[in-house]
């Protein structure tokens, strides 16, 4: 697609804000820091320190990984429909979560 080379969208302040808003609404309840967030707890246990359990601290998430997991789900996390997170919102979210990832 070439649409989302590293940071191209996330560096745009509007996209960044939109991505953060999607994260806050849909991801934060499970993925914010702390064991009270089951997604964070699960990833912390899974990676055993090799990677951060907190999504916002990840430096290896690719845009494509975010897209695939949001649309397919994993473990007890369900997939999300387009009436919940539209393709455009997913692009913004993926760019936001991949903002710290070297070119992917």
């Amino acid at each position, binding site marked *: 697609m070439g649409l989302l080379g590293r940071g191209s969208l996330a560096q745009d302040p509007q996209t960044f804000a939109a991505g953060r808003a999607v994260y806050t609404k849909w991801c934060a*309840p499970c993925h914010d820091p702390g064991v*009270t967030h089951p*997604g964070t*707890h*699960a990833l912390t246990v899974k990676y055993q320190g090799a990677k951060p359990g907190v999504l916002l601290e990840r430096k290896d998430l690719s845009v494509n990984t975010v897209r695939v997991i949001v649309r397919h789900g994993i*473990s*007890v996390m369900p997939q*999300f429909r387009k*009436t919940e997170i539209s393709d455009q919102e997913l692009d913004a979210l993926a760019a936001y979560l991949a903002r710290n990832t070297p070119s992917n």
Partner: protein
Amino acid sequence: MRLPPGVSRSDFSAAIAEFEKVVGSQWVFTSDEDLDLYRDAYSPFLNEPEERMASAAVAPSATEEVQRIVRIANRYRVPLYAISTGKNLGYGGSAPAYSGCVVLDLKRMNRIIEVNEANAFALLEPGVSYFDLYRYIQDRKLKVWIDCPDPGWGSVVGNAIDRGGGYTAANYRNHFDSHCGMEVVLPSGELLRTGMGAIPKAETWQQYKSGCGPWIDGIFSQSNYGIVTKMGFWLMPQPEAYMRCTVSLPRYRDLAPMVETLNYLENSRITAGFPDIASPLIGYPPIGQIQLWNEDGPPHMTDEHRKLLTAVDLGYSRELEEYGLKSQIPYWQLWLSFHGPMEVIEAQWQATQRHFARIEGAKFNTVDRVSVPLDPANIEHFHEPEFGIPSLRAFSIGARTPWNPTPSKGHMWFSPIIPRTGAAIIEANRVFSRAARDLGMPLFRSFTLPACFWERSFIFILATPVTEDPETNKRYREGFKKLIEIGGQQGWGEYRTAPVFQKSVMDVYSFNNHALQRFHETLKDAIDPNGVLSPGRYDIWPRHLRGKPS
């Protein structure tokens, strides 16, 4: 293109084209990739041919669009399946009960039409989640509480019409009971308002439930007689204070008087908060603290204690009881919560203690005594839904933790209603633990305590995992059905279940040669003669699909 059974390609294409005219082509989904998003993420038929699949999905944004879609569906005999937010995980998710339905996805209908603080009610569309409603109330600093189940992303309307429950005071926990007034699109496309909403100028739609004449709201819950497009709810005025207390009892035999005393106090409204029964001695947590066990690990237990637990029968052995008495570990612990002005709830707690003091050895403890609203820094100390605060914390059930290294793919809830007595708790354990052992079903613990969401009855709730292995899922599915049947023989029936078990459950409700089911079918034929709306939901089938395997 996937097709609904019995619908020709040309008719389906025509229907899809008309749906697109109503909602815009971007809100009609027909590709496999898009339709996979409507699969039940916790389906016990995961990746098997019987997994329920949609043939298309259409997402309207307004009631008038819903009416038009329903009329089109009638014209082409295309079956629809309505979902609200589609997050009914463990009870069917966003997948249809009958494969090939067009999912009518109401998530975009997410307007909060009114939250009235002065008379504590709300009027909502089905796409509004508990998170949405909570944020709306917080942003406006309104002094009302919602009552939410554990998963906060669910629909307030959808949860109520699937008859879900929550955790605050008794008269709000039953979400269907606490609703007031509905707007419904009938299978003909006609619009209906119930209760006082049937009077065009009424200002009391959310203030008096039944209006005059037959009160029909119940038939739109756990059914397929209409699509609820607006629904009113009574909210709880924000209480001034909250107190959480425990009653600890030392002996196995104390279970029956504990339940009897609880019933009296709750039915008299001396205590109204969510009662939560635990057993520190057996190692069974209160429901409101399961997430703490998943997050921080279960409480420490000595080797001697652990060893004694391997030799109990129905949660009992004389040695275990003696160990509990010696070590001061209560056999039973009842968690009670109180909402209201401090002087009122202190008095309620005093009266509560006086009643329980009749049980020898009862001990009392005030665990939390806080003013409301909570300090945000303190919220995680509590089980948020007990404060009407939505969360997703409960998804620690089944997720990977240090104590659960092999996460599940989901879960299904086995949840029969049993009597509110100590004897029934023991009998349910006797019946189900033996059955589960015989069926190779993984019950989480050797002794199960029921949930007290409802007044007057218990839900004997057990989570059964969904895995990625079809053989295991098959064994659990068949075991689940057998448990339903065994429960039915005792007079116990599920309060709610996923589509794949709805036939088994409704078969248990069999009084007088299934008179109830036959009445459901009579209604279905009258209200939805073409059988277009949610066929098979709660095993109510239109005439042309009756008697076929689902």
